[in-house]
Each structure stands twice: as C-alpha cells, then as structure tokens.
C-alpha cells in the first residue's frame, strides 16, 4: 500500500525513547518477576522465572550468575535462642530454600532410642507402646561424635548409647508417673547378660552382654563433664500403679529423619516469604481508621498530617499474616496491595535439643554440598 508522499518509514525502536530505562525490566514486569501478588481470590505470579533466557528479547540477562548471587545474598538473624532461631535469607531462590528445609527435617542425623531390651514390664503400658514412646524422647548428645550402626556391626561405644530404666511402684504407695529423667545413662555399656548356650561357664572374663564396649564412654572428652541425658526431664513415659514394675535397657543409635521421624533433629523448620503491604493511594481520615481497625495484627498505623487530617501508613509489614482482611470489603483492593517478595525468606528453625539451631542449619548446607559432590563424582 502506498504511503502518503513525503512520509518516510523510519525504523522505530522503543529503546530510543528518552525515558525508557535500558538494561532493566519495565516496572510491571519487574513486579511480575519478583513479587507474588496476593489477590483476594488467589495469589498470582507464584512461579519463579528461572530460565536464563526469559527476558532475552528485551536484552536482559535473567541468569543469576554466581558473582551477582554472592554480592546480593544476605543473611540477617532476628532471634537466636538455645532452642530456636529465626533469620532472613535474602537473594536466594525458593528451590534452594526448600532443599535446606527438607534436609533439616529429614536428612540430618540424630541419636534416638532404637532397641529396647525389656527385662520386666508389669505395667499397663504394652511393651511396644513403651518402646515407641522411648524412641521419641529427644536425647541431648551431639550425633557427630558417633558412627552409624549397620546390620553387620557390633554395638560398641562408637555407635551406641545405652540407657537403663528401672522403676517400681511398691504396694501401698500411690501411683507413680515415670518421667524421662528416670532414664539413666550407662557409660560402660549394656548390663544385661546374654544367655550363652554353654552350660559350663568359662571362669575367665566377664559375661557377654548385648553391647561390646571397648572403653567407657565417660572417658571420651566431650562426655567427661556432661553426661548424656534426655533433653527434657519431664516427658511422661509411663504411669505405674501399686505393684507394677518396669525394668528395661534402651540402646540409642544414629539415624536420619527419612527412616523414622524420631531421628528428626528439628521440632519443625519452616519458611515464609516476606510480606509486602503497599498502599496504592493515600488513605486518609475515616478510611485510615477503618483500615487500621481491620487488621488483626496491627500492620497499619495512623500518622498525623496536621490540621486534624490523618493518614494511614504501613508500620509492620513483616507481621502480616496475609489474612486479606484489609482487602476484603468493596474497593479495598484498589487501595491496598498485598504482595510477597519472592527471594526474601524468613526461616524459623526449632531444634529438639540435640544440636543448637545455627549448627543444624550449617550442617544442612554441608549435606547439600555433599550430595552435589556425590553427583559430580558419579558423573565423572
């Protein structure tokens, strides 16, 4: 089709316009890439755009190269106690954060009671129920000092911890509650004697027990001043009525949470993305009061503008639980935007006591490194 005479067809590129920023994504795409928009009905843009060539047509490199990652990655610890911690990881992707969480729950080794040798149990708690409850008691010992016990190994001081429980409720005395502090550590190994076939006992050496301790565990330097005990002394294991008795020996071994949850070192570990609450327009006076009262966790605050006018501000976005109360009424969705930052994770780790939570996280990262190394070795 012939154009009007005198009109030239110029090659027009949007990048030539003076106010278009080059090398960055336009703001709406940046929002899509880095934030999850939590709308009233459902969140959108939840997937992380990982493909390195995703924005290639705009001339933007989406690959997170290692140097950029190293520069932008930050960790900020918010709370650190003996048993739990909360920290922020900024600049990492959900895939890696989830790997850490999975490893914390299922692949960090701990010590837990596995074999229970019951000599006498006249209580109303069945043997297997008692053994199950004993397995779930967290033990305060560093699992890195021990080795795994496989089927062919003999239980010795390097892979087993032995506890004894001997409680008796005498006739005429009131009922007793057996708590976990009744578990006594036996640093010299098992005291239950194995029945040997030989009727003639050889007068030499001590009788054979169920473990083969070469030396007492008390001599190991880490246990000299701190004996191995359950972490919490007040866990109820059983209850005894008059005349009932429990006598047993419990052997604890090293394992991981994948095999059985008793070996999981964390009560739980979870993460959430940082919430971002944005006021899309100025909210003043009555609307501001209404907004502040709607939020159950007091994310919003009122500030005075002078002359009796007030304005709402976002004071504590981190506390937001995304209950969506603030966008629930009519028109509120136009005024308030709820978002989550895709690469800012608030991690919480609650340890059951074997290891402090910061050590747990470091060990989890080491385990991911080891897995990678194994894959690399197998590929070469």
């Amino acid at each position, binding site marked *: 089709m012939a154009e009007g005479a005198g009109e030239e067809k110029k090659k027009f590129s949007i990048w030539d316009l003076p106010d278009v920023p080059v090398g960055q994504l336009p703001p709406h795409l940046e929002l899509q890439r880095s934030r999850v928009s939590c709308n009233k009905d459902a969140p959108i843009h939840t997937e992380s755009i*990982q493909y390195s060539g995703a924005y290639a047509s705009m001339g933007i490199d989406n690959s997170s190269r290692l140097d950029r990652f190293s520069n932008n990655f930050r960790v900020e610890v918010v709370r650190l106690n003996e048993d739990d911690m909360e920290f922020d990881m900024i600049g990492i992707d959900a895939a890696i954060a989830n790997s850490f969480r999975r490893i914390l729950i299922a692949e960090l080794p701990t010590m837990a009671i596995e074999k229970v040798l019951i000599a006498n149990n006249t209580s109303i708690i069945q043997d297997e129920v008692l053994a199950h409850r004993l397995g779930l008691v967290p033990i305060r010992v560093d699992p890195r000092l021990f080795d795994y016990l496989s089927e*062919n190994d003999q239980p010795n001081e390097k892979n087993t911890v032995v506890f004894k429980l001997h409680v008796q409720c005498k006739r005429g005395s009131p009922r007793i509650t057996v708590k976990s502090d009744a578990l006594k550590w036996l640093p010299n190994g098992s005291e239950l004697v194995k029945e040997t076939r030989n009727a003639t006992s050889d007068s030499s050496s001590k009788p054979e027990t169920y473990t083969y301790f070469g030396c007492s565990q008390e001599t190991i330097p880490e246990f000299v001043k701190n004996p191995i005990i359950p972490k919490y002394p007040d866990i109820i294991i059983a209850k005894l009525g008059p005349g009932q008795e429990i006598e047993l020996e419990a052997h604890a071994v090293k394992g991981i949470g994948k095999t059985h949850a008793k070996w999981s070192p964390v009560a739980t570990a979870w993460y959430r993305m940082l919430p971002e609450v944005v006021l899309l327009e100025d909210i003043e006076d009555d609307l501001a009061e209404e907004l502040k009262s709607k939020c159950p966790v007091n994310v919003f605050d009122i500030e005075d503008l002078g002359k009796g006018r007030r304005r709402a501000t976002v004071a*504590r976005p981190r506390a937001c639980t995304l209950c969506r109360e603030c966008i629930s009424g009519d028109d509120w969705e136009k005024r308030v935007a709820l978002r989550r930052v895709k690469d800012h994770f608030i991690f919480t780790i609650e340890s059951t006591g074997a290891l402090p939570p910061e050590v747990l996280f470091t060990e989890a990262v080491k385990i991911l490194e080891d897995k990678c190394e194994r894959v690399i070795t197998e590929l070469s």
Partner: protein
Amino acid sequence: GRYNLIFYLKICFPNDYWIQFHPFNSFVSWFGDLEIGLKETMEHGSFTDNSAATFSLTDEDHTIANAIRFTLNQDQMVTFCGYSIPHPSEARVNIRVQTTGDPAREVLKDACQNLMLMCRHVRCTFDKAVEDFKASNAVKAMKIDSQDSSGDDSEESE
C-alpha cells in the same frame, strides 16, 4: 576392602546407549560376602548427539533435583531442563538436560559445581551473620546490665 568396578557399556539400541557408571560403596564384609550398595547414575542419550541426555540418579529425591534444576536453568547454554520422579516409592530421579551444543554431562557437572559454590557462600554468610548477632547481643547485654535499664524492644514476629 573397597572395590570400585569400572563402568561398562551395554549397547541396547543402535543409536542410543546406556552407560552405567561405577557403583559406589561396594564393601566386602568380614565374612566375605560381597555387598554392593547400588548408587548409580545412568545416562540415557544418543551416541551421535551428546548435547541432550536424561540422567537417572538413584537414592535421590526432590531435595537435590529441584536445586540442580534451578542452577541448570541459570546456565546460558541450557535450552531445556527438568526433572521427574518416575514412581514415588522408588528413590530415583530423572534429570533431563538439553543444551545448545555442549555435552550434557559437562553442563550438569557445571551446574552441580555452581550449586556447591552457592552452598559454600550461603554457609559463610550465615556463619558470619550468626557471629555478628551473638557479638551484638553480648554487647547489648552488657549495656543493659551496666545501665540497669529495662525494655529490649527487639522485633519478634511469628
């Protein structure tokens, strides 16, 4: 002692191959039975074109596979990558890698190396952050003791 069997080629199809890499962890126990702990990686691809392959890892699950898939995506030579778990009861993961010409195995190895470096960096940063936090808390505790002031309004969110 420990035996490492060398890999062997098993030719199934004219243009495809299965390479079985050396099994890891084969022990001879004290009584002489040979126990082979199977931990193999198999690569299924084409003889002629090694830029696309599927790697089958045993004893692995989403934990490592999703992380490797993420680092693979970041690599600019990768045109396609993904992972699948053929059956949830079997601990096996298939990772598919298609590249723009480089051998898929090398690209996968690079991705694993990148993941390892990222982990190391995470660990360093985390350790430093914990140390800084403990140090600043110790200073705060001393200040509170000396001034005898109350109220430590640190933000604690759920």
